[in-house]
C-alpha cells in the first residue's frame, strides 16, 4: 500500500507565480520528510527537508510546510521559474538505528512553468 501519496500527477504555473505541490502520508511514525526534484534521464536531486519537530523550513525560493495532524506536507516555490519544470517527489522516513532510514516516495508531480 502507498504510504506517501501525491494526488496531482501534473501542475502548470505561469512564470513568476507560486507553485504549490502537495503530499499526503498515512504513517504517523514518519519523522523526516523531503522533496526531490527530477529531470528526465537523471536521478532525483535533493531539494529541501523538514523534521517532524518543525512545521516550516525555508531555503531561498523553496519552502516546505508540514501539518502533522493532517498528515500533509506541501512545497511552495515562489517565484516559479522555467528551470523549475521537472518532476517533484516527496519522500518520508522514520529512523531505525539498526536498519537505517529507507525513504518512502510518492508517485511524483510533474511541474511545468510556463514562460
Amino acid at each position, binding site marked *: 500500500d502507498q504510504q506517501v501519496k501525491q494526488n496531482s500527477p501534473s501542475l502548470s504555473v505561469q512564470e513568476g507565480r507560486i507553485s504549490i505541490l502537495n503530499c499526503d502520508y498515512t504513517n504517523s511514525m514518519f519523522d523526516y520528510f523531503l522533496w526531490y526534484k527530477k529531470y528526465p534521464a537523471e*536521478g532525483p536531486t535533493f531539494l529541501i527537508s523538514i523534521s517532524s519537530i518543525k512545521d516550516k523550513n525555508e531555503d531561498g525560493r523553496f519552502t516546505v510546510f508540514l501539518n502533522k495532524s493532517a498528515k500533509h506536507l506541501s512545497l511552495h516555490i515562489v517565484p516559479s521559474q522555467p528551470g523549475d519544470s521537472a518532476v517533484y517527489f516527496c519522500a518520508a522516513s522514520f*529512523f531505525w538505528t539498526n*536498519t537505517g532510514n529507507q525513504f518512502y516516495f510518492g508517485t511524483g508531480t510533474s511541474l511545468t512553468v510556463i514562460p
Partner: protein
Amino acid sequence: GAGVSQSPRYKVAKRGQDVALRCDPISGHVSLFWYQQALGQGPEFLTYFQNEAQLDKSGLPSDRFFAERPEGSVSTLKIQRTQQEDSAVYLCASAGTGGNQPQHFGDGTRLSIL
C-alpha cells in the same frame, strides 16, 4: 567525481540472462541504498547497507535479486535469470552518518529485458 556514480547507464538483456549493476557512492558515505523505479512511479526501496553489512533486504522482490558491498564502498546489484517485469530504472543512493540525512542519488541504470 563528487556524486554517486552508477554504471552502466543503460542495459539491455534477454530474458533469462544475469545482469550486474554497479554503484560507486559518495566518498565517506557509510549508508548505501538501492531503489527500483518503475515507469510513472516513485522509487521503491530494495536494500540497505551500512558499510559492508547488509542490514535490510526486505524490499528485494525475489531471491533472484542479490546485492553486495564487500569493502564498504562500491556496491553491486545482481539480478539472475532476468524476467520482463525486472525492466525498470535502478537507483543507488548514499548518505552520511548521523541522524536524519538526505540521500543523494545517482542517475540510475535503465534496465530493459527483452
